């Protein structure tokens, strides 16, 4: 190892390369940070050709010292750019000072760690106590008669007792609002949505009215979500399931309100803003025609699955809370009773011109017990105004349409007969009108969003 290791061309020989690599590896092993090590190794290999003069040094020991020194210099250069490499051996001359400093740092860090752990224990203990206090043990108090925990058909409670003259806010606290009719709204999940902006079509003139921003109706939904048995054994699951539903509703801005199975009322999307609850839908009031009801209607969803609506699918607690909520919303926004309707009665498929695209509450909503008119017997607006029909899939779910559909069909037939036209012809004309109005509404919304002028209205519904 004592002689020169350069080849005839003046390049470092294989033996010299091995010596260099050995020194680089020795330095590399001292580096703790993988990225710093990677940088060091790669830069050292890159720099090797520049160390050719070292190869001419006759003493192997001297060459190795020079290679080591070059490696350390390389590391020092990297350390200046990379603080994480600074703990490497580049500062070996300062090793005693570094070790003393490291020991001191370690002691201080250990002290801080102990203090931190102690603080953590205290915080955890206080937090646990607060949590237990705020959320009682999962085992529920059995208030029902044993064996009657499952939900059967409910007897709808009459409006007995003294009712307040109006619904007002009694108290507001962190995460809740309490109203005079007993309604308690949890607002911990509340988020803002897009502003309400909608115009109403006039059925006779086809003109669209002024831009409105206040809700004029309530649409009742079912969440069509996981529903667990209302039994004590499922208590945790019931609670967790609701939390997950609420997170989902909040994430997607689905409803303004959710009423959970224990009758708790959650405001999710602010009332002043629209939720994505209605999809393509139609409702009317006199000559006023409302299309796509997200903006015009508040969305209230009961945590349940509708499943045909042959039995009331909500709990007694949900029923009472829902009724109080309905009273509060109607009072606050001056909503007419005939503008409170079930989603299934309004939902349409615009491409196929069919009613019942969604069928939640298309049967079985307790309108009367809510103090509302029976919307099932009212002629279905989508049928009478826009000539919509239904298909086999609808009948598979519903068995038969609600009475208002039959009533609307009868009215449409009579109108066709009076005009001396075929029913199909009249239907087609009405469906085309829907397409035009819907297109117009979409264009107007796009224009509003982009600041352009809205297009002119298309014309009256006729008849």
């Amino acid at each position, binding site marked *: 190892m004592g002689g020169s290791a350069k080849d005839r061309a003046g390049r470092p020989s*294989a033996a010299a*390369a*091995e010596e260099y*690599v050995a020194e*680089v*590896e020795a330095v*590399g*092993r001292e580096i703790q940070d*993988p*990225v710093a*090590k*990677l*940088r060091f*190794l*790669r830069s050292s*290999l890159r720099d090797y050709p520049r160390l050719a003069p070292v190869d001419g040094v006759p003493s192997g020991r001297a060459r190795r010292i020079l290679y080591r020194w070059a490696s350390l210099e390389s590391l020092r250069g990297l350390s200046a750019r990379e603080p994480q490499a600074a703990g490497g051996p580049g500062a070996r001359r300062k090793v005693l000072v570094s070790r003393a400093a490291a020991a001191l740092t370690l002691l201080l860090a250990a002290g801080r760690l102990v203090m931190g752990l102690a603080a953590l224990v205290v915080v955890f203990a206080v937090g646990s106590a607060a949590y237990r206090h705020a959320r009682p043990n999962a085992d529920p108090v059995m208030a029902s008669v044993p064996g009657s925990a499952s939900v059967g058909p409910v007897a709808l409670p009459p409006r007995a007792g003294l009712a307040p003259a109006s619904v007002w806010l009694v108290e507001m606290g962190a995460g809740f609002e309490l109203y005079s009719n007993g309604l308690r709204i949890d607002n911990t999940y509340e988020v803002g949505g897009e502003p309400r902006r909608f115009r109403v079509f006039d059925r006779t003139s086809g003109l669209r009215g002024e831009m409105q921003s206040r809700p004029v109706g309530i649409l009742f939904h079912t*969440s*069509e*979500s*996981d529903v*667990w048995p209302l039994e004590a054994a499922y208590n945790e*699951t019931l609670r967790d*399931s609701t939390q*997950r*539903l609420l*997170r*989902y509703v909040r*994430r*997607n801005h689905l409803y303004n309100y959710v009423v959970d199975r224990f009758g708790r009322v959650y405001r999710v999307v602010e009332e002043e803003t629209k939720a994505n609850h209605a999809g393509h839908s139609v409702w009317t009031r006199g000559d006023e025609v409302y299309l796509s009801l997200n903006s015009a209607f508040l969305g209230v969803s009961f945590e349940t*699955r509708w499943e045909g609506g042959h039995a009331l699918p909500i709990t007694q607690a949900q029923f009472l809370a829902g009724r109080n909520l309905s009273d509060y919303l109607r009072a606050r926004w001056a909503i007419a009773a005939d503008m409170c309707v079930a989603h299934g009665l309004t939902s349409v498929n615009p491409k196929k011109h069919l009613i019942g695209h*969604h069928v939640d509450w298309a049967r079985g909503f307790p309108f009367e017990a809510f103090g509302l008119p029976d919307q099932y017997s009212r002629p279905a607006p989508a049928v009478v105004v826009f000539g919509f029909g239904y298909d086999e899939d609808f009948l598979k779910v519903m068995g038969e349409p609600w009475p208002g559909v039959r009533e609307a069909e009868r009215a449409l037939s009579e109108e066709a007969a009076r005009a001396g036209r075929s029913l199909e012809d009249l239907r087609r004309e009405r469906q085309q009108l829907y397409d035009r109005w819907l297109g117009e509404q979409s264009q107007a919304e796009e224009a509003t969003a982009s600041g352009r002028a809205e297009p002119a209205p298309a014309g009256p519904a006729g008849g």
Partner: protein
Amino acid sequence: MEERKDHLWKVAQEVEERIDEMEKAGAAPAGIDVGTSKVVAARRRAKGIESASQLNAFIPVPYSRFTETILGQNEISYFREGSELVIFGSATEKFANMFNADVRRPMADGMVNPKEKMALPVLEAIIQTLLPKAKSQGEILAFSVPAAPTGKETELTYHEATLRHHFESMGYKATAINEGLAVIFSELEDNNFTGIGLSCGGGMCNGTLAFLSIPSIMFSIAKGGDYIDQAVGSVVGESATRVKVIKEEGLDLSRAPRDKFEKALHIYYDDLVESLVEALRRAISRAEKMPRSDRPLPIVIAGGSAKPRGFKELFERALKGRSMPIEIAGVRLAGDPLTATARGALIAAMYEK
């Protein structure tokens, strides 16, 4: 049925929580292992490297409002495509088991599957659940790519370019790293990144021999966990998805097989390992530029297919049965075989920063 739903939620929840934590890590280099079976992302946080994974698979189910709500409520990843809901990621396998159907894969044999029309939308959706968009343009990201199997070089070019384009559209400056080298970066730091890194994944096995972090040999074989699942499934009459689940529930290759199912698994694992060791031997034998080193080299094995108990011993036996051109110092499994490649990619990203 109810228990299954609960379990689904837990799977999804765990992934969500870890992803949330990673998102909070903010602007930092990221490493991502885009594997046939799993996509794993790694980021550096104050308390160390954090990783999260998603199954790289999907299953379409017919659209219904109820199904959509259940998926949303249970925080299961999905998107709507026409009349179908495409469930993707970690919950896919559970759904496949429920419906007794095979999952579909955006990737095959380590690369984007050209025969799968949903490949890119699903792969992009899966990546987006693991990796938020870059907070500032040009954040560094390193993603793993396999070594091209013979004759598939052009497909690798397409695969790498597709991923790079997607990551760049998310605001990252993307750099590719060979899978085997990523394993070396994450596992052979104590050895100055010198040795052999093997990654046994779902679609293929990759190997790299590096000297002081510089790769000298890279090779791959088109056999991996999927090959075992399909082969075993066809001989025992089970779906590949079901085989995978059973395999991951606790296959022990060090124990004599107890039934025909385990026997088939042993046979195909033997075949996989033999193929891998032979490919390693051949790659080293054919190498023209091997670094001079008298030291024996360590082998480290990573990847989900290396997880069954007894895999290392099986590999060692196969190694002893062959005359290797270099001396091997020993074989060991990666500390966390599933995340080793992603962690190595993260080191590469931090190096590039």
